[in-house]
């Protein structure tokens, strides 16, 4: 390992390296460019066996590029990578796995129509003369799942699993071969707290076995909890490495965004609507067989209602029912009048908008332009009575939303897939704002969104509430629920178990409700 160019640290340690033990992975002066775009510049990183090394940075900071280099998806443009002291340049992901490098992707890379077991051992199935031995495959998978303590059935078809369960399959897949270095890319972004706990137990076990772990996450509380070392990246560059004990949240955020961050959640400027204000949405004894029971709640104009629950509690299904995507019984009232909602178009006609939890599958046409996506819901309002589009009205609306929500895009014709997660989420918001919704339902509005963009999305939500939109925000991030809501409703086991005013509410109290622990 060559001495650090700036010469600020003692010669024994290069930047990115904090402890004395021989690192399992050393990255020195690694760069990667795609044509004129420099995605990674002079990256430094050293991962020690038995320690969790967190990579922290906004989307676009270069974390994914680094991961893909380590996974063998593409080679670096320059620099050295050493694994256990030997030069490491994987040809492809299979080669990386053969070197004992496991990568757990956040982008779900599973085949939907195969079973859990088939996915875990994809491309290296137990076989005899090319014939797959199904029973052995399922036994191996069952053993692995037991060892890891995952609530999975090896024979279940992936298409039938929830997003959280699929992420657990991804984890099992990543750990299904002998490993010295595990890289986890936002593994908890789709997990509920209880499932995240399972993951943290697995991480502790891996640490005890002396495995080095690179951990990528946007959730500050869990980063502070499980990390040993933290390396901050910004704009493709190495910024700084700290140990967990040296670091504090505000400092990390400041390093990451390159400016001090005052508050994570924007403050409410006007008081929440009084209890006497008539609700704009009232749900009364809503039922869907097997999915949720007797769900009742109301939202007032200008109010942010937080809906919290562990994954599987039925939160998203309730929202889907209100939006006409699921058959249901019970009463839904909008502005005091009972309405019949049998399809999304009924919901939209009644002024209900729904930002779903899965923006890539349900929110966007990734191949289409920013403009087409923004205008996709309110199409009719950019057309004359005969259904002919007014291109100028389309451009004007898309341009205005891009400015208003500060969506970062090269131009209106850029394909949505080329934008970062945060900006994609803003496009989904923009398409719904075009119908001027009375009720805006947000399901996991900041999933996979970096800290800077998160704050901007929170600001938009606040602003909408101030303008009188009723907001229902479903989230599995407790701090987000507490930071944004005026009132919190908690679901557990397909029922609403608690409704609380946000003032004075603590994470512990909400968590007890959500976990079904009787308080009081």
């Amino acid at each position, binding site marked *: 390992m060559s001495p650090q160019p700036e010469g600020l640290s003692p010669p024994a340690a290069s930047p990115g390296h904090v402890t004395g033990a021989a690192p399992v992975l050393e990255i020195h002066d690694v760069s990667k460019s795609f044509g004129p775009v420099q995605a990674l510049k002079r990256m430094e990183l050293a991962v020690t066996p038995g320690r969790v090394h967190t990579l922290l940075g906004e989307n676009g900071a270069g974390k994914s590029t680094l991961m893909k280099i380590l996974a063998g998806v593409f080679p670096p443009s320059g620099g050295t990578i050493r694994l256990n002291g030997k030069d490491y340049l994987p040809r492809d992901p299979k080669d990386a796995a053969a070197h004992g490098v496991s990568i757990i992707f956040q982008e779900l890379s599973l085949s939907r129509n195969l079973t859990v077991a088939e996915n875990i051992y994809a491309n290296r199935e137990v076989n005899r003369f090319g014939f797959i031995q199904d029973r052995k495959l399922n036994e191996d998978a069952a053993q692995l799942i037991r060892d890891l303590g995952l609530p999975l059935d090896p024979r279940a078809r992936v298409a039938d699993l929830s997003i959280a369960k699929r992420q657990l399959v991804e984890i099992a897949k990543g750990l299904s071969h002998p490993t010295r270095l595990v890289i986890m890319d936002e593994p908890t972004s789709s997990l509920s707290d209880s499932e995240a706990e399972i993951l943290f137990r697995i991480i502790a076990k891996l640490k005890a076995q002396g495995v080095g772990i690179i951990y990528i996450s946007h959730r500050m509380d869990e980063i502070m909890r499980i990390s040993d070392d933290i390396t901050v990246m910004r704009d493709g560059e190495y910024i700084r490495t700290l140990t967990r004990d040296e670091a504090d949240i505000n400092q990390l955020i400041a390093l990451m965004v390159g400016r001090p961050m005052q508050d994570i959640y924007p403050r409410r400027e006007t008081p929440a609507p009084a209890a006497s204000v008539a609700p704009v949405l009232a749900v009364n004894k809503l039922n869907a067989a097997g999915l949720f029971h007797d769900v009742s709640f109301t939202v007032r104009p200008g109010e942010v209602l937080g809906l919290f629950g562990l994954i599987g509690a039925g939160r998203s299904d309730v929202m889907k029912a209100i939006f006409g995507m699921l058959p249901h019984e019970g009463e839904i009232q909008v502005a005091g009048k009972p309405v019949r909602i049998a399809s999304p178009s009924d919901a939209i006609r009644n002024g209900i908008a729904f930002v779903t939890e899965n923006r890539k599958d349900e929110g966007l*046409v990734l191949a289409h332009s920013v403009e087409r996506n923004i205008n996709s819901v309110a199409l009719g309002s950019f057309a004359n009575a005969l*259904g002919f*589009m007014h291109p100028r009205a389309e451009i004007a609306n898309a341009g205005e939303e891009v400015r208003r929500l500060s969506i970062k895009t090269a131009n209106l014709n850029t394909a949505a897939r080329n934008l970062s997660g945060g900006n994609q989420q803003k496009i989904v918001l923009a398409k719904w704002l075009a119908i001027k919704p009375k009720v805006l339902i947000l399901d996991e509005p900041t999933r996979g969104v970096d800290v800077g963009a998160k704050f901007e999305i929170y600001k938009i939500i606040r602003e909408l509430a101030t303008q009188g939109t009723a907001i229902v925000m479903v989230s599995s991030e407790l701090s987000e629920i507490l930071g944004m809501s005026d009132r919190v409703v908690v679901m557990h086991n397909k029922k609403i178990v608690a409704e609380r005013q946000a003032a004075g509410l603590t994470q512990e109290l909400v968590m007890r409700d959500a976990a079904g622990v009787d308080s009081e």
Partner: protein
Amino acid sequence: MKNFASSHTVRQYGGIVAALIVLCVIFSVANPRFLQVNNFLNIMQQVTVVAIAAFGMTYVILLGEIDLSVGSIIAVAGMVGAQCFAFGLGFVPTVVITLLSGVVMGGINGFVSAKMRLPSFIVTVATMGIFRGVVSLPTGGLPAPINNDTWLLLSIDDLFGVPLMVWILAVLFVFNWVLLSKTVFGRRAYLTGGNREAAIYSGIRVDRLKIVIFMISGVMSAISGILLSSRLSSAQTNSGMGYELDAIAAAVLGGTSLAGGAGSMIGTLLGALMIGVINNGMNMLSVPYFYQLIVKGVVIILAVWLDVRSKSSRA
């Protein structure tokens, strides 16, 4: 902005226009008569039947679906026309009934696929056979002569020196181009083809859209059927056989994505022209038919490959 638009157009159609020019140069060198205005009109006229069906096919493929029953609908439409005339109906009612038969057949495709949740590939493989069987019902498999003069003149007459069929092609091109690229309906088709789930969440009634699009495909095929039976002066049980593949090839050559969500009428027209130029050029060089089939297949693969490559290298 202007600059961007033109570079976008070049990117979109550059490949196929270049391929068309290369083919035209080759054929003109080999046979100077190829480059005459008359021959161009001749190509347009030969292309019309496939191009009109391909316009309908463009919506279907754009939606991420496929319609293999197009050739059979062409034959049924001709037979419906012949039977109406045999029954003593006049030109206008016969045209109306023939077009309606296209709507009904397309509607069956769309309805079965949407409401019974069956892939359109399977549904239209089945109806391709069913409709082909239906053609033979009135005559027991024999051709039915048509002697309505107006109907026959459709493929013979000129207007301002341009064949009537080419006028019909032009009118239908403009109609479909406007419908697809300038209306709410067209936007919904792109959106649904691009991401069906997102379209459902955006409040689009995707089942209804699918049925309507298959109806359009049916009606376009019926128009093709009218023109084909006019050229043949009769309805034949095997007419239009294999036309579905030419229609698909035209749309795909023109850049319509089989995955859905991308494509255009201009592209499809260019794609149909390309197929027409290949057929016409090789006929003029007296290339035997079986060689024509081989060359056509190779050219289609090359053209689509070039097109895909030029687009992906931009990403």
